[in-house]
């Protein structure tokens, strides 16, 4: 037996069914269907909204933090937080669905990812988006359709204040249409890619599509 330290795809019956289910998820996903926006009264108290990271301690952004946007784009970007905050702001208050089974509600403030993609100019052939973080090796990758959904944003704020470092400061991916583990926190790099890559949890057996 070879003990590999790379990601091993699940084989056999469960692997085949997982592939099938991911195709089914893509089929069920409608790019134009919006998650309902919820009233402020539904907001989960800040201390009851769980915050997960994989580092031993809360990851703290370096002082010269920037967001790199690259891959198959016409204009690779390096954006500071101030630049992101000057762009058209999108707010959404939606239900968060965790793979574990809990739900919670928060308001998120940020910039639509589709806006960033428009600025960078996607080259033909882009089908996937990969998100990398400074939280150890945490990363995730998405189908382009979900990434360009109007309720998919790069959030720098939560519930009316700046994003806390427990929730992914200074910038995290947030979306109404994916499970929590797909929404990479502590974001520092986005790549638009022609082929599918994995993710921290996806490589361990959570479904890659992870839509809700």
């Amino acid at each position, binding site marked *: 037996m070879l003990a590999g330290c790379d990601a091993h795809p*699940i084989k056999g*019956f*469960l692997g085949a*069914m*997982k592939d*099938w*289910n991911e195709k089914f998820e893509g089929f*069920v*996903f*409608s790019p134009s*269907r919006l*998650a*309902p926006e919820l009233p402020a009264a539904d907001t*989960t*108290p800040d201390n*009851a*909204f*769980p915050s997960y990271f994989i580092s031993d301690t809360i990851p703290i952004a370096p002082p010269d933090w920037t967001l790199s946007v690259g891959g198959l784009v016409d204009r690779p970007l390096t954006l500071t937080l101030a630049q992101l905050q000057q762009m058209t702001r999108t707010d959404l208050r939606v*239900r968060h*669905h*965790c*793979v*574990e*089974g*809990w*739900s*919670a*509600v928060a308001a998120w403030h940020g910039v639509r990812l589709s806006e960033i993609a428009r600025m960078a100019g996607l080259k033909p052939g882009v089908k996937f988006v990969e998100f990398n973080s400074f939280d150890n090796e945490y990363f995730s990758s998405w189908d382009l359709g979900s990434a360009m959904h109007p309720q998919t944003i790069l959030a720098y704020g939560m519930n009316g204040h700046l994003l806390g470092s427990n929730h992914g400061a200074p910038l995290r991916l947030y979306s*109404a*249409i994916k499970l929590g583990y797909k929404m990479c926190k502590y974001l520092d790099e986005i790549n638009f890619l022609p082929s599918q890559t994995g993710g921290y*949890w996806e490589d*361990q*057996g*959570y*479904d890659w599509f992870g*839509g*809700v």
Partner: protein
Amino acid sequence: MPEAHDPLFKGRREQPWPIRIVHWCNALFLILMAGSGLQILCAYPYLGPRGAQYRWYPFQGTPPPKWMRIGEWLGGGRQWHFAIAWFFVLNGIFYVAYFFLSGEWRRRMFRPWRDLKGAIAQFLYYLRIRRTPPPTDFYNGLQRLAYSSVIIFGLVMVLSGLAIYKPVQLHFLTLLFGGYDGARVVHLAGLCLFAMFLVAHLILVSMHPREIINMVTGGPRE
């Protein structure tokens, strides 16, 4: 009881082979669905959203025992649950199609005006309030009630499961169950009802052991 002499069933076994196959596949699928579902529940053994968990649920924070779970961890449980779900649904569709196309519904489906009195009488007999069982042809009223309502119950399990699986894409369905956390309540309550059905089913079938043999061999021809 005219259906006992229904010419449709002449020469047909009490449990035709499609029903036997569906029954034993269903037994396997339900065990796998229940075990993997309980493994999924372990990741958040609460009902109600974060910050507003339901006070009425007595098992908040209590994970189901390990021997009941299938899949080892949340990811494994999800893989089993979403894999077997397809076979469970296909099995159910096959059964319902056969149920109606073969005419089996005529001797199996609960029809209140025919079966309600018999069902009550049979129930009283099991409680030993009534001394003799009511006259029965193919199935008694209580059997018809149980085996018919369990089809609707299976449908509710599938729909509430889909409502949890895709609460945004199938938002209308999720709303039907009172939202995401409502759908989780229905889905778990369904599992409890299923466990109760299984216990009753096993007790009653042990009182009528011929039925177990029939469900394997098909039993005598009409």
